[in-house]
């Protein structure tokens, strides 16, 4: 029951809204913007937290959690299946390689980093295609139809997009792991912090939950060339910079592939330019499936 509602997400360290990441986001906001009380006041105001868009986020979070638990996770091809298939494939196609013996620390460290980086790269490209491929944009609109932002907006994603991102994870983590097993054998494991990938943990701790908020936390310019700040994702949600900052944690993909925007604080308007959304649950689920009907 708890699983169906998504409430367990608050106590699992591999989830974005894990309580510790929420607390750290709040602390960062309070400490950094202590001299600008208006900013915090706005985030916790009724017009942001009780906006029809935010209310949809909350209902949506519970509804989509149930969809994920009942439909998506059981049916989705998992990373496990990809790994087994791929290791056997590698062996049969490229022959047998003598296991490379390296120290555990290097093996586990490089694996943890590579999983994180590879995942971040495939997230970048899938996210970019969600915007540039018209058919995919129909589904990704659901996320961008949010007119106000709060951490739960992260989960305002159409189930079709969930499936695509889930498959992407299975393929990415599966391929990296299969390659590691092919070359290094057993003995790989993830460097973890409280049960999450070390790098995911650190990234989540430095304000990931502020990405979907009205708190314009920026990192120093030099840092923003490597790691996307919450503010850079807020720019992505604004009506003017939708085709920029597709990245998740690292900004190098945006930088190398020409979609990075950093810097100056601007007055932002979130949401879609061409539409006044109705913020209905049914509409969010069904509208992308049929362009003609608006619920």
């Amino acid at each position: 029951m708890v699983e169906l509602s998504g409430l367990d997400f608050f106590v699992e360290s591999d989830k974005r809204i894990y309580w510790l990441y929420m607390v750290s986001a709040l602390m960062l906001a309070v400490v950094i913007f202590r001299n600008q009380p208006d900013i915090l006041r706005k985030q916790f105001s009724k017009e942001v937290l009780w906006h029809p868009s935010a209310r949809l986020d909350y209902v949506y979070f519970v509804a989509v959690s149930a969809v994920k638990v009942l439909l998506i996770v059981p049916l989705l091809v998992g990373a496990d299946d990809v790994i087994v298939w791929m290791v056997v494939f590698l062996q049969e196609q490229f022959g047998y390689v003598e296991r490379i013996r390296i120290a555990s620390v290097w093996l586990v460290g490089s694996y943890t980093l590579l999983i994180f980086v590879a995942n971040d790269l495939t997230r970048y490209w899938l996210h970019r295609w969600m915007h540039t491929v018209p058919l995919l944009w129909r589904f990704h609109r659901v996320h961008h139809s949010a007119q106000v932002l709060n951490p739960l907006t992260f989960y305002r994603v159409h189930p079709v997009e969930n499936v695509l991102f889930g498959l992407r994870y299975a393929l990415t983590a599966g391929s990296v792991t299969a390659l590691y097993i092919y070359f290094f054998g057993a003995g790989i494991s993830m460097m973890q912090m409280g049960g999450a990938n070390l790098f995911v943990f650190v990234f989540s701790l430095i304000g990931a939950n502020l990405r979907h908020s009205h708190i314009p936390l920026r990192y120093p310019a030099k840092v923003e060339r490597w790691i996307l700040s919450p503010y850079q994702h807020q720019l992505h949600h604004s009506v003017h910079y939708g085709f920029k900052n597709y990245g998740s944690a690292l900004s190098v993909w945006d930088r190398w592939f020409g979609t990075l925007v950093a810097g100056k604080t601007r007055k932002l308007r979130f949401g879609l330019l061409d539409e006044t959304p109705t913020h209905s649950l049914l509409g969010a689920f069904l509208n992308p499936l049929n362009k003609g009907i608006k619920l």
Partner: protein
Amino acid sequence: MKHKMIKSLLLALAVLLAGCGSDNAYDGTELIGSNTPTTPEENAMLSVQTQVFQKHATALKQSITQMRQSISTFEQNLTANEVSSLQTQFETLMTEWKSVEAGYVAADYDESLIDTPSAIDFFHTGNVDVAADVQKALDQTGDIESALFKNSSKTITALEYMLFGTATPLDEMVGLMNKDDKRRVNACDVALKNLEAQASKIETFYQNDTKFAANITDASNALANVLIDSSFKLKEWRIGEPSGIALKYAGNPDSNRFEYAKSKRSLEAMRAILLTHQEIMGEQSYANFGSFASQNGAQSVVIAIRKQISDALALLNQFNTPIEEAINGTSVDAKIDTLYATTKELQRLYYESLIQALSLTAEIIEADGD
């Protein structure tokens, strides 16, 4: 302003990290896998596996020593019975080696033992024609030991050629053994001397090692690695390539690619390998790696693994003649196809159990967009 911001940021993070409960503490032991066995089950499993490895290493060493002793008693020309007895002893020695090889974790604990297997037999390693080298040494005059200067000429593979020729009939073999003042018999002893030294190293390792039983994570990894390795080579090299099922020789079977085609003992080698898998994974009266994995959440996979092992062994028992004779030109006995499929599934299941242990099941965070 900027510096102030970074400072507050760092401060906030430091406070947070310090505030993390113990469940969020960085788990260093998990990272480098220095997990000492704690439960009686873990200890029992590790000591049982050590005993199994020790038993085979000792048996291998003994079979070699025995064969050398037999050879040292020959004064006159060898009779057909004596040659045949040597051939039988070869089978014992070779199958004992297959048992050691199928569970060879020693290389993970002692670097000096990494190359030992390639000093013991020569299969699927490079383009050396061991038989031709040995024949050349036999055809020469002068000291046989220096004529067999190549390491590969002193392996089980070489010994097989010395004792069996190329599946040469026994009466002809007797003549060859006695030729040139029993040069071939002396060659056998040169090879056996090398094998004895190699087997000795392995036996000493298993008798003295304390590292394997001291770390359950490393031991499990070593066992998983060796089982996966061994099942792959069994399926692909020992069954798939001779029968032309493997991609490399698709549709081009050749019974000479069997591991022990010259002695027609390839089936016995396969059986020894599978029996070792059964000792490690199968249902036994003692607590082995299989029962350990089963108790640790891999129950259904272990059941499936056990079934594949016994299915494969049962298939081997269905061959009434040497497996080499099950390939005739391009026609391959259907039992070999089944054997390939069974061992392929066995290897797949080993991977499945390994990956289950990694627990990488899709995290939902990764199923969300941004």
